[in-house]
């Protein structure tokens, strides 16, 4: 079979780095190709070249065997290349159909929008994706997963033969992820090719016909469907065998540190949750997106006012109304969205690290930069933050290094209860292992840890106990020894004892 797309010997240089060094990529019609690699390996750059965002310095692109110059996003579209970005490019003040045909609306009398045709054409594409929605539905009423489908519909409406999906499942629930994977299989059977970028090796294994792995801007290798397995991909990605982290056996006799009693968040005012976190344990929080895990974390950290809550630390009731109160009590949150809540990306690493306890680095209200720099440099070294200097702006760091700066912020203080919300989202395999190790070290030093995660693998491998949430309630708390994927999923979808009895 002739390849649909061939990228040959593509090179791209940025100041100081060679982003791509003679990279090849081939896609056949109706093939799902996964593109894997650590952050900074060149996946996004390669896809941006294909999508017409960047121009390559060297190399050529062939579509249907003909050399093609892609100089702009519209060039890419006219060559049948559609791009579904990680951050959705939809306008939530418009309807579904208006989004799909934005800039290409069918017209009446040359100036008026033909709404009937607009909506019916949209519904055809939505149906192809197994989505039964009226085109006139306002986009804001859709879930993230449905909005993503709208983006895919938009690509299809442009007659895309290759759809690039960049981390499409990073904000989807498990069921939504399964749905998306089904849609991708359907697209494949309709002859559409998909280039699938993901950090989740499980999904790649499930869906990909082939995996192309990049490392440091070069082709690291390709695995065919039969050869795809977790260790194989990781080995190509990091160029060495990754030592699996061996968890120390957790002792059963840990003292309780924090007791959360009758916590009711504003999102689920009628669901009361109570649990305790012990010193030195990692309490995992599993559940579907929207189960109320982040809301609970934000209430405990004082950034979201709960309807009711009693929190006691070491048996003492504490009053937490603001993040300041939480921080004073040694409760720190590593938030889900590190770029908007975890860090101020426009300011240097140093200022980010010292911000929560700036008074410690000041006398008479004046900040001592030298004291700040000393701590910042120490923390960067301790956490192995890869940055030219502590004066580098946080925006210029990779996801993993940004997350380490968020951690450095709190570790420079005196944590007693650390709450991690999706600690490794969008972080590459190498940095992930480092973050797990840091978490484990913290626990070993007696810190109580809550870890919210939507990655089943992470929940199962890192938690000592697992609290599973369902629609604002804790559906069950499972000990590590009894935990299994099935059991957690059952609790997460709300099939409690009844389903278990049948099973």
């Amino acid at each position: 079979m002739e390849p649909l797309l061939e990228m040959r010997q593509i090179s791209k240089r940025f100041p100081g780095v060679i982003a791509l060094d003679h990279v090849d990529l081939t896609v056949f019609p109706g093939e799902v190709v996964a593109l894997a690699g650590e952050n900074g390996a060149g996946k996004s750059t390669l896809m941006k070249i294909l999508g017409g965002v960047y121009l390559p310095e060297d190399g050529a692109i062939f579509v249907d065997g003909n050399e093609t110059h892609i100089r702009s996003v519209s060039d890419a579209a006219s060559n049948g290349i559609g791009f579904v970005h990680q951050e959705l490019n939809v306008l939530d003040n418009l309807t579904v159909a208006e989004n799909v045909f934005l800039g290409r609306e069918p017209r009446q009398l040359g100036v008026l929008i033909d709404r009937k045709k607009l909506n019916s054409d949209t519904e055809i594409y939505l149906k192809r994706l197994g989505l039964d929605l009226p085109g006139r539905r306002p986009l804001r009423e859709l879930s993230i997963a449905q909005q993503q489908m709208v983006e895919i519909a938009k690509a299809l409406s442009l007659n895309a033969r290759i759809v690039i999906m960049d981390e499409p499942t990073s904000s989807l629930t498990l069921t939504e992820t399964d749905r998306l994977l089904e849609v991708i299989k359907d697209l494949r059977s309709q002859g559409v090719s998909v280039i699938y970028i993901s950090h989740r090796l499980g999904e790649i294994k499930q869906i990909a016909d082939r995996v192309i792995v990049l490392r440091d801007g070069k082709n690291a290798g390709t695995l065919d469907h039969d050869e795809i397995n977790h260790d194989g991909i990781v080995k190509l990605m990091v160029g060495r065998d990754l030592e699996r982290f061996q968890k120390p056996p957790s002792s059963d006799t840990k003292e309780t540190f924090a007791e959360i009693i009758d916590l009711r968040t504003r999102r689920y005012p009628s669901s009361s949750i109570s649990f305790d976190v012990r010193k030195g344990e990692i309490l995992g929080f599993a559940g579907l997106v929207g189960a109320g895990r982040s809301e609970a974390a934000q209430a405990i950290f004082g950034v979201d006012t709960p309807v009711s809550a009693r929190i006691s630390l070491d048996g003492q009731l504490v009053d937490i109304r603001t993040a300041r109160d939480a921080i004073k009590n040694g409760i720190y949150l590593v938030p889900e969205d590190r770029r908007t809540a975890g860090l101020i990306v426009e300011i240097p690493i140093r200022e980010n690290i010292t911000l929560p306890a700036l008074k410690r680095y000041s006398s008479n209200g004046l900040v001592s930069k030298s004291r700040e720099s000393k701590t910042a440099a120490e923390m960067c070294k301790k956490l192995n933050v890869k940055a030219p200097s502590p004066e580098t702006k946080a925006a210029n760091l990779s996801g993993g290094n940004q997350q380490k700066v968020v951690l450095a912020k709190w570790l420079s203080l005196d944590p007693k209860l650390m709450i991690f919300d999706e600690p490794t989202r969008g972080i590459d395999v190498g940095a992930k292992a480092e973050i797990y190790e840091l978490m484990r070290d913290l626990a070993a030093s007696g810190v109580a840890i809550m870890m919210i995660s939507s990655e089943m693998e992470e929940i199962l491998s890192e938690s000592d106990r697992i609290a599973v949430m369902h629609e604002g309630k804790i559906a069950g708390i499972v000990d590590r020894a009894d935990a299994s994927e099935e059991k957690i999923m059952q609790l997460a979808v709300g099939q409690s004892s009844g389903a278990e009895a049948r099973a």
Partner: protein
Amino acid sequence: MRKELGTFALLVVLCVVLAILNPVFIDAANLQNLARLIGIYGIFSIGLGLVIITGGIDLSVGSVFALLGVLLSIFLVEWHLPAAVAVLAVVGITTFLGLVNGFLITRVKIQPFIVTLCGLLFYRGLARFIASDETKGFGAASGFETLQSLATGSLFGVPTPFIILVAISIVMWVVLHRSVYGRYLFAVGRNEIAARYSGINSNVVIASAYVVCGMLAGVAGVLLAFYTNSVSPSSHGNFYELYGIAAAVLGGCSLRGGEGSIVGILIGTALLQVLQNLVNLLGIPSSLNFAVMGAVILLGVLADQLLRQRQAAQIAR
């Protein structure tokens, strides 16, 4: 720092050109008057700069000047209050108005533009009502000559408002660029959510910027009232908030918040005043006053934008 350098270069070029075209520019009397105006405008521009750094805006400053001028005249001329009491009262009032702005913005969560736009209308109307729409003045200033000399006098040839500005600038420079509070101000302006997640009470920080702005507007307003010596409630202080905003923006403050410096604001203020002086000295019809100012501000911002794009392009290549 680079941003300030560009505006500073523009200021120097403008001064040199002006001095060559009309040597009256470097006459002591002209320079003194220029310094006096820079003093008055600089003081409230710093306050506005602070507000802009938090990502906010204060449109009410000009109307506050009118209200303050009317009240000050009544306190001194009609009620014969001691000068110190009258000044403390009016500065206290403007500081309180700043607090009201801060409260409405941070607690009631109304957008700063709306809150202070309402202030702009409300205080102007109030001033006109209190004064029965008549011009208020200070006459011969009997009994408060010392106070008046703060606005109109000089110390060793340097106009006192300029000296006051220098003193305030030094204090505010330390506050903004060296203190914990200043760091919080920039942090909140950049990313309020992340600042809150770091334990900063962002509401208090933002509200305090409006309070400081109100206080500095009070100080500048007293000087301005004596500088003009008569307060016509319908026109006194008109557009002054815009001069302050323009000075802050020319000096490198971003209306998105989180950016700006005291030195920049001072350079921006000086630039605007020199421009005003230029219009007068070069015999340009005063009706073109605003047009010249608007054009130069646009050019300044445009040059900065082009410079930035070129730098960005260099990085991308």
